[in-house]
Protein backbone atom coordinates (compact mmCIF):
# COMPACT_ATOMS: atom_id res chain seq x y z
CA UNK A 1 0.00 0.00 0.00
CA UNK A 2 1.14 3.53 -0.66
CA UNK A 3 2.13 6.03 1.98
CA UNK A 4 -0.51 6.91 4.52
CA UNK A 5 -0.15 10.56 3.57
CA UNK A 6 -1.60 9.80 0.15
CA UNK A 7 -4.82 8.44 1.60
CA UNK A 8 -7.23 11.29 1.44
CA UNK A 9 -10.51 10.82 3.27
CA UNK A 10 -13.67 12.84 3.69
CA UNK A 11 -14.07 15.09 6.72
CA UNK A 12 -14.87 13.06 9.82
CA UNK A 13 -18.49 12.84 10.83
CA UNK A 14 -18.83 12.67 14.58
CA UNK A 15 -21.97 12.06 16.58
CA UNK A 16 -21.63 12.71 20.29
CA UNK A 17 -23.75 12.38 23.39
CA UNK A 18 -24.79 8.83 22.59
CA UNK A 19 -25.37 5.68 24.57
CA UNK A 20 -24.38 2.18 23.50
CA UNK A 21 -26.88 -0.57 24.24
CA UNK A 22 -25.73 -4.20 23.95
CA UNK A 23 -28.44 -6.85 23.88
CA UNK A 24 -26.47 -10.01 24.44
CA UNK A 25 -27.33 -13.62 23.62
CA UNK A 26 -30.67 -13.18 21.92
CA UNK A 27 -32.15 -16.39 20.48
CA UNK A 28 -31.78 -16.64 16.70
CA UNK A 29 -35.39 -16.81 15.56
CA UNK A 30 -37.35 -14.76 13.04
CA UNK A 31 -38.67 -11.57 14.56
CA UNK A 32 -36.68 -11.98 17.78
CA UNK A 33 -35.46 -8.39 17.66
CA UNK A 34 -38.72 -6.93 16.40
CA UNK A 35 -39.89 -5.59 19.79
CA UNK A 36 -36.75 -3.48 20.04
CA UNK A 37 -36.97 -2.07 16.53
CA UNK A 38 -40.72 -1.48 16.93
CA UNK A 39 -40.00 0.55 20.05
CA UNK A 40 -37.35 2.60 18.27
CA UNK A 41 -39.62 3.14 15.27
CA UNK A 42 -42.56 4.16 17.45
CA UNK A 43 -40.46 6.85 19.08
CA UNK A 44 -38.75 7.92 15.82
CA UNK A 45 -35.34 7.04 17.19
CA UNK A 46 -32.54 7.06 14.59
CA UNK A 47 -30.04 4.23 15.05
CA UNK A 48 -26.62 5.87 14.84
CA UNK A 49 -24.77 2.57 15.00
CA UNK A 50 -25.95 -0.97 14.46
CA UNK A 51 -24.18 -4.29 14.58
CA UNK A 52 -25.28 -7.88 14.99
CA UNK A 53 -22.92 -10.79 15.54
CA UNK A 54 -22.90 -14.48 16.29
CA UNK A 55 -22.83 -15.31 20.02
CA UNK A 56 -22.70 -19.11 19.67
CA UNK A 57 -25.31 -21.69 20.68
CA UNK A 58 -27.81 -20.23 18.20
CA UNK A 59 -27.70 -16.86 19.92
CA UNK A 60 -26.95 -13.39 18.57
CA UNK A 61 -25.53 -10.21 20.06
CA UNK A 62 -27.07 -6.91 18.98
CA UNK A 63 -25.39 -3.56 19.59
CA UNK A 64 -26.95 -0.18 18.86
CA UNK A 65 -26.09 3.43 19.64
CA UNK A 66 -28.76 6.07 20.05
CA UNK A 67 -28.75 9.58 21.47
CA UNK A 68 -28.98 10.05 25.23
CA UNK A 69 -32.09 12.14 24.70
CA UNK A 70 -33.79 9.33 22.77
CA UNK A 71 -32.68 6.81 25.38
CA UNK A 72 -34.47 8.78 28.08
CA UNK A 73 -37.68 8.53 26.06
CA UNK A 74 -37.52 4.76 25.52
CA UNK A 75 -35.95 3.75 28.84
CA UNK A 76 -39.27 3.11 30.64
CA UNK A 77 -40.11 0.41 28.07
CA UNK A 78 -36.70 -1.24 27.85
CA UNK A 79 -37.27 -3.83 30.56
CA UNK A 80 -40.29 -5.14 28.72
CA UNK A 81 -38.31 -5.25 25.47
CA UNK A 82 -35.51 -7.15 27.17
CA UNK A 83 -38.03 -9.74 28.33
CA UNK A 84 -39.70 -10.03 24.96
CA UNK A 85 -36.52 -10.43 22.95
CA UNK A 86 -35.18 -12.84 25.59
CA UNK A 87 -31.78 -11.17 25.81
CA UNK A 88 -29.70 -12.85 28.50
CA UNK A 89 -28.04 -9.53 29.33
CA UNK A 90 -28.33 -5.87 28.46
CA UNK A 91 -25.27 -3.70 28.93
CA UNK A 92 -25.15 0.07 28.64
CA UNK A 93 -22.13 2.23 27.91
CA UNK A 94 -22.87 5.87 28.62
CA UNK A 95 -21.24 8.91 26.99
CA UNK A 96 -20.01 7.43 23.76
CA UNK A 97 -19.48 8.92 20.33
CA UNK A 98 -19.58 7.43 16.85
CA UNK A 99 -16.78 8.60 14.56
CA UNK A 100 -17.24 7.94 10.86
CA UNK A 101 -14.13 7.59 8.72
CA UNK A 102 -15.16 7.66 5.07
CA UNK A 103 -12.95 7.20 2.06
CA UNK A 104 -9.90 5.01 2.67
CA UNK A 105 -11.31 2.10 0.59
CA UNK A 106 -10.46 -0.63 3.05
CA UNK A 107 -11.61 -3.19 0.47
CA UNK A 108 -8.86 -2.49 -2.06
CA UNK A 109 -6.06 -1.24 0.15
CA UNK A 110 -4.46 -3.97 2.25
CA UNK A 111 -3.34 -2.47 5.54
CA UNK A 112 -5.64 0.57 5.46
CA UNK A 113 -7.68 -0.71 8.40
CA UNK A 114 -4.49 -1.61 10.29
CA UNK A 115 -3.28 1.97 9.81
CA UNK A 116 -6.43 3.33 11.38
CA UNK A 117 -6.78 0.95 14.30
CA UNK A 118 -3.05 0.73 14.98
CA UNK A 119 -2.93 4.52 15.31
CA UNK A 120 -5.95 4.59 17.63
CA UNK A 121 -4.50 1.82 19.78
CA UNK A 122 -1.12 3.54 20.09
CA UNK A 123 -2.99 6.61 21.32
CA UNK A 124 -4.70 4.42 23.95
CA UNK A 125 -8.11 5.01 22.45
CA UNK A 126 -10.47 2.15 23.15
CA UNK A 127 -12.72 1.27 20.24
CA UNK A 128 -15.74 -0.30 21.93
CA UNK A 129 -17.26 -1.38 18.65
CA UNK A 130 -16.48 -1.07 15.00
CA UNK A 131 -18.51 -1.56 11.84
CA UNK A 132 -16.57 -1.29 8.59
CA UNK A 133 -17.95 -1.84 5.10
CA UNK A 134 -15.95 -1.19 1.94
CA UNK A 135 -14.90 2.42 2.42
CA UNK A 136 -16.70 3.51 5.55
CA UNK A 137 -15.84 2.74 9.14
CA UNK A 138 -17.87 3.62 12.22
CA UNK A 139 -15.96 3.56 15.51
CA UNK A 140 -17.70 3.74 18.87
CA UNK A 141 -15.38 5.41 21.36
CA UNK A 142 -15.69 7.26 24.64
CA UNK A 143 -16.96 10.79 24.24
CA UNK A 144 -13.94 11.95 26.28
CA UNK A 145 -11.57 10.63 23.61
CA UNK A 146 -13.10 12.31 20.58
CA UNK A 147 -10.62 15.18 20.36
CA UNK A 148 -7.66 12.80 20.65
CA UNK A 149 -9.18 10.54 18.02
CA UNK A 150 -9.63 13.49 15.67
CA UNK A 151 -5.96 14.42 16.07
CA UNK A 152 -4.78 10.82 15.59
CA UNK A 153 -6.92 10.23 12.50
CA UNK A 154 -5.85 13.62 11.14
CA UNK A 155 -2.20 12.54 11.41
CA UNK A 156 -2.91 9.12 9.87
CA UNK A 157 -4.94 10.19 6.86
CA UNK A 158 -5.21 13.35 4.81
CA UNK A 159 -8.41 14.86 6.21
CA UNK A 160 -9.62 18.05 4.48
CA UNK A 161 -10.61 20.86 6.78
CA UNK A 162 -14.30 21.50 7.13
CA UNK A 163 -15.60 24.49 5.18
CA UNK A 164 -16.62 27.34 7.43
Amino acid at each position, binding site marked *: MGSAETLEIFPLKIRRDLIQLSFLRIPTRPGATRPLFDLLERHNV*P*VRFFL*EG*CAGDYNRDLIICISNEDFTRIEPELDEVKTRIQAQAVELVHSVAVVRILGPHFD*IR*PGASALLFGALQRADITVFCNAT*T*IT*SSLCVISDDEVETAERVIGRTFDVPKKKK
Partner: protein
Amino acid sequence: MSFLAGEPVMDKHSKTLEIMRRIGAPKPEKIRISGFLKSPDLASLTLLLPGGDTDSFSTVLQLMGDHEINIRFINKYRDSAGNTSLCLCIDAESLDTALIVLDANESSLGIRDFMYHPQVRIISIYPHKERPRVAERLLTTLRMHGIDILSTNNASSVISCVLNTEYVEQALACLADVFELP
Protein backbone atom coordinates in the same frame (compact mmCIF):
# COMPACT_ATOMS: atom_id res chain seq x y z
CA MET B 1 -54.85 -19.88 33.27
CA SER B 2 -57.76 -17.68 34.28
CA PHE B 3 -60.79 -16.75 32.20
CA LEU B 4 -62.18 -14.09 34.50
CA ALA B 5 -63.32 -10.98 32.71
CA GLY B 6 -60.75 -8.23 32.73
CA GLU B 7 -57.86 -10.56 33.43
CA PRO B 8 -55.35 -11.61 30.80
CA VAL B 9 -55.86 -15.19 29.72
CA MET B 10 -52.31 -15.55 28.52
CA ASP B 11 -49.00 -13.98 29.44
CA LYS B 12 -48.59 -10.87 27.31
CA HIS B 13 -45.08 -12.00 26.39
CA SER B 14 -46.28 -15.40 25.20
CA LYS B 15 -44.77 -16.52 21.89
CA THR B 16 -48.13 -18.04 20.93
CA LEU B 17 -49.81 -14.71 21.41
CA GLU B 18 -47.10 -13.02 19.35
CA ILE B 19 -47.74 -15.48 16.49
CA MET B 20 -51.51 -15.02 16.79
CA ARG B 21 -51.05 -11.26 16.55
CA ARG B 22 -49.24 -11.68 13.27
CA ILE B 23 -51.64 -14.21 11.71
CA GLY B 24 -54.13 -12.36 9.62
CA ALA B 25 -52.31 -9.11 10.06
CA PRO B 26 -52.07 -7.13 6.83
CA LYS B 27 -48.84 -7.55 4.90
CA PRO B 28 -46.58 -4.70 5.96
CA GLU B 29 -46.12 -1.91 3.47
CA LYS B 30 -42.95 -2.17 1.40
CA ILE B 31 -40.11 0.09 2.49
CA ARG B 32 -38.80 2.28 -0.30
CA ILE B 33 -35.07 1.99 -0.93
CA SER B 34 -32.72 2.91 -3.75
CA GLY B 35 -31.17 -0.49 -4.29
CA PHE B 36 -29.24 -3.57 -3.28
CA LEU B 37 -25.52 -4.15 -3.59
CA LYS B 38 -23.90 -7.56 -3.85
CA SER B 39 -20.22 -8.07 -3.14
CA PRO B 40 -17.87 -10.30 -5.10
CA ASP B 41 -16.90 -13.71 -3.66
CA LEU B 42 -15.48 -13.36 -0.18
CA ALA B 43 -14.55 -15.51 2.79
CA SER B 44 -15.44 -14.69 6.38
CA LEU B 45 -13.33 -15.21 9.48
CA THR B 46 -14.78 -14.99 12.96
CA LEU B 47 -12.33 -14.76 15.83
CA LEU B 48 -12.75 -14.61 19.56
CA LEU B 49 -9.89 -12.62 21.05
CA PRO B 50 -9.06 -11.66 24.61
CA GLY B 51 -10.77 -8.39 25.54
CA GLY B 52 -9.52 -5.54 27.67
CA ASP B 53 -6.08 -4.01 27.46
CA THR B 54 -4.62 -6.98 25.59
CA ASP B 55 -7.02 -6.54 22.69
CA SER B 56 -5.14 -7.94 19.67
CA PHE B 57 -7.67 -6.61 17.15
CA SER B 58 -5.31 -4.18 15.45
CA THR B 59 -2.52 -6.80 15.36
CA VAL B 60 -4.81 -9.13 13.40
CA LEU B 61 -5.48 -6.32 10.92
CA GLN B 62 -1.77 -5.54 10.70
CA LEU B 63 -0.98 -9.19 9.91
CA MET B 64 -3.62 -9.22 7.18
CA GLY B 65 -2.21 -6.00 5.73
CA ASP B 66 1.35 -7.33 5.82
CA HIS B 67 0.18 -10.23 3.65
CA GLU B 68 -1.64 -7.98 1.15
CA ILE B 69 -5.06 -9.19 2.25
CA ASN B 70 -7.95 -6.83 1.55
CA ILE B 71 -10.60 -6.44 4.20
CA ARG B 72 -14.06 -5.52 2.98
CA PHE B 73 -16.06 -5.93 6.16
CA ILE B 74 -15.30 -5.68 9.89
CA ASN B 75 -17.55 -6.24 12.87
CA LYS B 76 -15.89 -5.82 16.24
CA TYR B 77 -17.48 -5.70 19.68
CA ARG B 78 -17.20 -7.01 23.21
CA ASP B 79 -19.29 -10.10 23.93
CA SER B 80 -21.05 -11.15 27.14
CA ALA B 81 -17.90 -12.84 28.47
CA GLY B 82 -15.75 -9.75 27.87
CA ASN B 83 -13.99 -11.21 24.83
CA THR B 84 -13.52 -9.29 21.61
CA SER B 85 -15.64 -10.78 18.86
CA LEU B 86 -14.21 -10.00 15.46
CA CYS B 87 -15.73 -10.85 12.09
CA LEU B 88 -13.75 -10.05 8.93
CA CYS B 89 -14.60 -10.58 5.28
CA ILE B 90 -11.65 -10.92 2.94
CA ASP B 91 -11.23 -11.74 -0.74
CA ALA B 92 -12.04 -15.44 -1.20
CA GLU B 93 -8.70 -16.14 -2.87
CA SER B 94 -6.87 -14.82 0.21
CA LEU B 95 -8.43 -17.32 2.59
CA ASP B 96 -5.59 -19.86 2.53
CA THR B 97 -3.03 -17.17 3.25
CA ALA B 98 -5.15 -15.76 6.08
CA LEU B 99 -5.57 -19.18 7.66
CA ILE B 100 -1.81 -19.82 7.55
CA VAL B 101 -1.10 -16.42 9.09
CA LEU B 102 -3.66 -16.84 11.87
CA ASP B 103 -2.52 -20.38 12.57
CA ALA B 104 1.10 -19.26 12.88
CA ASN B 105 0.12 -16.46 15.28
CA GLU B 106 -2.62 -18.22 17.19
CA SER B 107 -0.94 -18.17 20.59
CA SER B 108 0.56 -14.68 20.36
CA LEU B 109 -2.83 -13.28 19.36
CA GLY B 110 -4.49 -15.29 22.11
CA ILE B 111 -7.16 -16.61 19.75
CA ARG B 112 -9.80 -18.34 21.91
CA ASP B 113 -12.10 -19.51 19.17
CA PHE B 114 -12.05 -19.35 15.43
CA MET B 115 -14.33 -20.28 12.55
CA TYR B 116 -14.48 -19.45 8.89
CA HIS B 117 -16.83 -19.64 5.93
CA PRO B 118 -15.00 -20.05 2.61
CA GLN B 119 -17.75 -18.69 0.35
CA VAL B 120 -19.76 -15.71 1.47
CA ARG B 121 -21.11 -12.53 -0.02
CA ILE B 122 -22.25 -9.28 1.46
CA ILE B 123 -25.66 -7.93 0.58
CA SER B 124 -26.18 -4.25 1.28
CA ILE B 125 -29.31 -2.15 1.24
CA TYR B 126 -29.11 1.55 0.59
CA PRO B 127 -29.97 4.03 1.83
CA HIS B 128 -30.29 2.94 5.44
CA LYS B 129 -30.80 6.47 6.78
CA GLU B 130 -30.56 5.12 10.34
CA ARG B 131 -34.15 3.85 10.12
CA PRO B 132 -34.84 1.08 12.66
CA ARG B 133 -37.47 -0.55 10.46
CA VAL B 134 -34.99 -1.14 7.63
CA ALA B 135 -32.78 -3.21 9.93
CA GLU B 136 -35.76 -5.02 11.39
CA ARG B 137 -37.24 -5.85 7.99
CA LEU B 138 -33.91 -7.12 6.71
CA LEU B 139 -33.23 -9.41 9.68
CA THR B 140 -36.76 -10.73 10.05
CA THR B 141 -37.33 -11.37 6.35
CA LEU B 142 -34.14 -13.34 5.89
CA ARG B 143 -34.71 -15.41 9.04
CA MET B 144 -38.36 -16.07 8.12
CA HIS B 145 -37.01 -17.70 4.97
CA GLY B 146 -34.50 -19.80 6.88
CA ILE B 147 -31.48 -17.81 5.74
CA ASP B 148 -28.63 -17.80 8.21
CA ILE B 149 -27.17 -14.32 8.70
CA LEU B 150 -23.54 -14.54 9.71
CA SER B 151 -23.02 -10.87 10.59
CA THR B 152 -24.74 -7.52 10.06
CA ASN B 153 -23.75 -3.88 10.43
CA ASN B 154 -24.41 -0.38 9.23
CA ALA B 155 -21.75 1.90 7.90
CA SER B 156 -22.46 5.28 6.38
CA SER B 157 -25.58 4.97 4.25
CA VAL B 158 -25.84 1.20 3.86
CA ILE B 159 -26.84 -1.70 6.02
CA SER B 160 -25.02 -4.90 5.14
CA CYS B 161 -25.25 -8.55 6.02
CA VAL B 162 -22.89 -11.44 5.41
CA LEU B 163 -24.49 -14.57 3.97
CA ASN B 164 -23.23 -17.90 2.73
CA THR B 165 -23.09 -17.65 -1.07
CA GLU B 166 -25.65 -20.42 -1.52
CA TYR B 167 -28.33 -18.19 0.09
CA VAL B 168 -27.63 -14.99 -1.80
CA GLU B 169 -30.05 -15.31 -4.72
CA GLN B 170 -32.84 -16.53 -2.43
CA ALA B 171 -32.13 -13.62 -0.10
CA LEU B 172 -32.31 -11.04 -2.87
CA ALA B 173 -35.59 -12.53 -4.12
CA CYS B 174 -37.29 -12.39 -0.74
CA LEU B 175 -35.94 -8.91 0.02
CA ALA B 176 -37.36 -7.68 -3.29
CA ASP B 177 -40.75 -8.68 -1.87
CA VAL B 178 -40.52 -6.43 1.16
CA PHE B 179 -38.49 -3.50 -0.13
CA GLU B 180 -39.65 -1.27 -2.97
CA LEU B 181 -37.09 -0.41 -5.60
CA PRO B 182 -37.44 2.61 -7.89
